Structures are given as structure tokens and as C-alpha cells.
């Protein structure tokens, strides 16, 4: 019915100076910001306060996996130009922290690149946090290799800790998704 109406209208009139071939060039390029991962470490949550402060633990490692399949859709693979993952560490603990993360497939095997970031040591409890900012760029080729992603793993490592350490490490991150959707 619509086509009959349109045809009738068009026959009774004149449509000038239009170029519908331009529709081939329509590209949607939204830029979407979405929170990624976050964490808040309080020293007394990973070192038992009852341990003698004279005892130094050579290394504490905390790791986790979580469900994450945002990159697995065909839309992401075909239309994500790149993803910028921005991390911000705010640290008052007087130790450097190493933060690692990567991606796992259905069989929990690591795929694609593996990222290591270092949060600089803070100046102690009650001081202004030391801020470390890092950005990781995943280009389309990397996103393609990450298509089978089902889970994300993350590890935090800190060395030479004791129960006398005080302070907080805040991890904040977001993804900026640059979409290029060709109609």
C-alpha cells in the first residue's frame, strides 16, 4: 500500500536533486563509554592483621575470573573499530601493585594478548593517593582474535607485604567503544 501511495505521489509530482546512492555511504559512528572493572583493596583484607608485623610475606597474589562475552557478538567483531580501556589506580599503600588481566575462551584457555599494568606505590594511609593512569588500545584485529571470549581473568600481585601496611588501592576502569556501523 505504501509503495502504491508513494508511486502515486511521485507520479503526480517531481522530485529533483536527490541522490539516493548516498545511502551507501551512511555510517553510524557512535562512541560509547561503559564502565569496565573496578576494585577496592584495603590492606587488612589481604594481610591477616593478627600476623606479627615483623614477618614479611614475599608476595600476595589475588586472582579472579568473571563472565564477560561483550566481544563475542558478530556486531562487536564486525563493527568495533577499536576499544580504549582506560585504567586509573589511586594508591595510598606504600607498595607497587602489578595488575594483570586477559581473556579466556569457553574452555578457560587464555586467548589474545595479556596485559600487565603497574600501580605506583602510595605514601601511606591518610595521604593523597598516588594516581597512575594507563590506557590500552584494542584494535579491530585484536578484537577479532578475542571473539571467542567468554570470561575475563585478573590478577593483582604485591610483594613484601606485612600486617603493618595501611592504606587503600582503588582500581577504576572504563571502555570507550568506537563503533563504525556501515548501513
Amino acid at each position, binding site marked *: *500500500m*505504501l509503495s502504491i*501511495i*508513494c508511486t*502515486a*505521489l*511521485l507520479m*503526480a*509530482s*517531481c*522530485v*529533483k*536533486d*536527490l*541522490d*539516493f546512492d*548516498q*545511502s551507501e*555511504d*551512511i*555510517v*553510524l*559512528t*557512535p*562512541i*560509547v*563509554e*561503559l*564502565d*569496565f*572493572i*573496578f*576494585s*577496592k*583493596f*584495603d590492606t587488612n*583484607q*589481604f594481610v591477616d592483621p593478627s600476623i606479627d608485623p615483623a614477618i614479611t610475606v614475599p608476595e600476595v597474589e*589475588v*586472582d*579472579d575470573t*568473571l*563472565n*564477560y562475552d561483550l566481544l563475542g557478538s558478530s556486531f562487536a567483531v564486525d563493527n568495533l573499530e577499536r576499544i580504549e580501556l*582506560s585504567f*586509573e589506580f589511586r594508591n595510598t599503600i606504600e607498595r607497587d601493585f602489578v595488575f594483570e588481566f586477559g581473556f579466556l575462551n569457553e574452555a578457560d584457555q587464555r586467548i589474545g594478548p595479556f596485559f600487565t599494568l603497574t600501580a605506583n606505590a602510595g605514601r601511606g594511609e591518610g595521604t593523597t593517593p598516588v594516581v597512575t593512569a594507563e590506557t590500552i588500545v584494542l584494535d579491530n584485529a585484536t578484537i577479532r582474535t578475542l571473539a571467542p571470549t567468554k570470561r*575475563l581473568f*585478573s*590478577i*593483582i600481585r604485591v610483594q613484601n607485604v606485612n600486617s603493618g601496611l595501611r592504606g587503600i588501592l582503588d582500581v*577504576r*576502569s*572504563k571502555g*570507550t*567503544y568506537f*563503533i563504525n556501523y556501515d*548501513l
Partner: protein
Amino acid sequence: MRVFIFVFIGIWSISVCSQNKETLYDFTDIPQALLLNPGAETNFKFHAGVPFLSQFHVNAGLRGASLFDVFGDDGRNINEKIEQTLNKLTSNDFVTLTQQLELFNFGWQSKKDPNVYFSGGVYQELDLIGYFPKDFAVLAYQGNRDFINRPFRFSTINGSGELLMVYHFGYNKKVSKKLTFGARAKLYSSMLHVRSARNSGTFTTVETPQGNNFYQHIISNADVTLRTSGLASLRELEGENSGKEVVSKLVGRALLGGNLGLGVDVGFTHHIDEQWSLTGSINDFGAILYAKDVETYRARGNFVFEGFETPVQFSGNGDQDFLDELEAAVPLDTLSTTYLTMRPLKLNGSIKYSFNPYEDESCNCSLYGDSPVYRDAFGLQVFSQFRPKRPQYAASLFYYKRIFNFLRAKVTYTIDDYSYNNIGFLLSTHIDKINFYISANNVLEYSNLAKARSVSMQFGFNFIM
């Protein structure tokens, strides 16, 4: 996706507006004027529309932009033009399409009382209106990065569409020399209906410098409803004969097998004196009860997302699954409860001054009534139609001219939501008992429809005695 966008922009641009028929209103030389004002003056003894050809009407309008704005061959990049058009349009801009096809139309003067005229008929109507979903169009086209802390409102999602058959019967009585009154009863049989209106809530990405993460993505008080009737059973049809089955289902619904409703039109014509007259009408005061084949989708809830907590979830929130949490917080319910929707009410009014009467015998005027037949008239008409968000208005100046007895014309100048320079015309030929009429508006734009914001046209054949 591409097809959808083409159809959307296509409807938007080629056409669209309201159901205003400013050229036909109070054009009492043809019987279709009775459909706009059942109290229009009639001087017929009998009339019958040529089946399926007595009235075809289409009216399309776009408020806010034209096809040229996006597809104009002006050497500019189309994405730039889309972005400009997107920024220009507001959520009060809309696209409308109304189409009517009269199947039958007939009328006769009462034998008992020559002042009474009965008329009836059947017509099919398609009525679509879609408001520009500004906020979510921006989100889809530009994303949220440049709109941090700005809410995207679900209330910008608004639209309705209906395909229905209308059976009607009207009564028109010349109460006195000064007053004619009329009413028309309508039985609606709806074939398809969709509507999404009165949605509320927002989606906002809020910056949280002191929070757990950079942002909070907040769906707040979301309440979004899409009502459909007549669609669910069509969607289930598959296979080779699905086309035929769809047609047969729709025909069944057209023949009173659809969701039924009742409505009335009322109207009057009042002669203030010999030359001044006043008219008014209310059309489609009624409602349809949707009880068959109803599917209503409703999503309500609140949701906050601030990323995934890792590596260790000290907060004790447990393992997160983003989609599961979203679905639990803003559940999508599918309901089949009966609902009632008012028909889009339309109001018309006019004041007219007639002059230049036939003073010789050149006109067989008695056929058209006792009072002197005037060759010229001018006046003012107003129109309003209720829509999901707010009423639409139009006002027209008109000039009526009986050029020859067999050729009558009306020219209108209309101001409405679409433009301030809408010129319309109606030409009606009366040769022996055969009448043909054709009408269109926005004629100034016909030289290049691409730049038009609204177009309306109608034509038809009648047999009039």
C-alpha cells in the same frame, strides 16, 4: 536495518501530516463533505460513490525536516547532513501517514421528510504517526560519550499505527432554514494496531568521581510499554502460503472479525444571515476495545551498573552476570490483557461569507436547493486532531468559486505544523449526474516534492442526483 531506515526516512520525507482535509471540508457540492461534517448542507436526492473509486485519500507529513535535508544532491557528505538533521529535529517532530479508501458510499433523501438525508458506507483507513525518538536516535548515532550526566528519556519514544475498516451510517436534517444538524454512527473493525505512548524513565551515564568506578550507568524508573493487537497471530504464520493466510486473516478482520469499536461524528451548519454561515464538527469520538490477539510488552524497573568488581569481590556481591542482572532488575513482561484506545478525535470549524448569487436562469439551481446559489465564497477554517503527545492544529483561509455550473473549485491557504505556505486546491466537475473531484495541497512544493514537508491528495467519482 537498512530497509527499516529507508522506509522510515521514505515515509518521513515523501509525505506526511494529519487528517486535515481542508479543501474537502464544507465543499457541499460533493457527498464526501458529509464524512467531515455530518451536519453539512446537502441538496442531493440520491448519491452513490463509484465502488472503490469514490474516495482515495492520502496525507503524509513530516514536521521538522524534508527528504532534501538528507538526500539532497549538494555535494555534502551524507553523514554530516544526517547529523545536522538529527540536531535540528526535536522529540516534538513527527512523521504521519494517513490513507483512506472508500469501498462504498451512498445516500438518499428521506421519502417521509425531504429535509432528512441518510448516508452510509464503508471505508478502510491506515493511520500512522511516529514521533522522532530524539534521545535514543542521538544515543544510536553519537553514543553517550558526549552526553555524560545527560538523561536519555524514554518518554521520547512515542508512536501509533492502525489499519482498520469503518462502517458508518449518518443522519442529516435541515431543522430550519437556518440550521442543519447531523450525526453519524461508526463501527470500527481494527485489523492491526500498535501503540507506544506515555513511556517514562531515563537512562543516564553519571560521572562519579567519588564512586566505585568512573561512572554509574543508571536506568531510572523505566516504564516502557508497547501494545500490539493483531500482530502476534500474523507473526506465527510461516511457510509458502503465509502471504495468502495473512491476506485472508486481514479480510476476516475487515469484515467485522477484528477488534471492534464504536464512535460518532456530529456536526452542524448555521446560517447567521443570508450570506454568513458557521459550521462545526467532531469526528471519531469513540474507542476501540482490543481483546483479540493482544500482546503487550512492558519493561519496568531500575538498574545501576558500575562495571565488574574484580579480582576479589570484597563487597560479597558474588559473581556478576550483567545481562541476568539487567533482566532481573528491568523485567520484560508479555501481557495479553484487554485494552481500550480512543480514536484520534478530530475537530473542524468554519465561518464562510458567500456572495455573487446566480441572478439569471443560466444555472439549474433548483437542483441544489431553495436558497440562492452563490458563485463565490470565502472564509476561515480551523482543524485540530488529538495525537499521542499533543494535538495538531491547522488554520486555513479559503476561496470557493463556481467557475461554471459544471466546474467548481476551492483554493485554500493553510498554516499548520509543517509549513506556513501550504496552498491547496479542489476541482470538482459535475457533468450530467457524474461527478469527479480531485484535490491536493502543498501545490507550491509539487515542483520539487523532495523539499516538501507535507502532501495530501484525494480524488473520487460519484453519481449524484
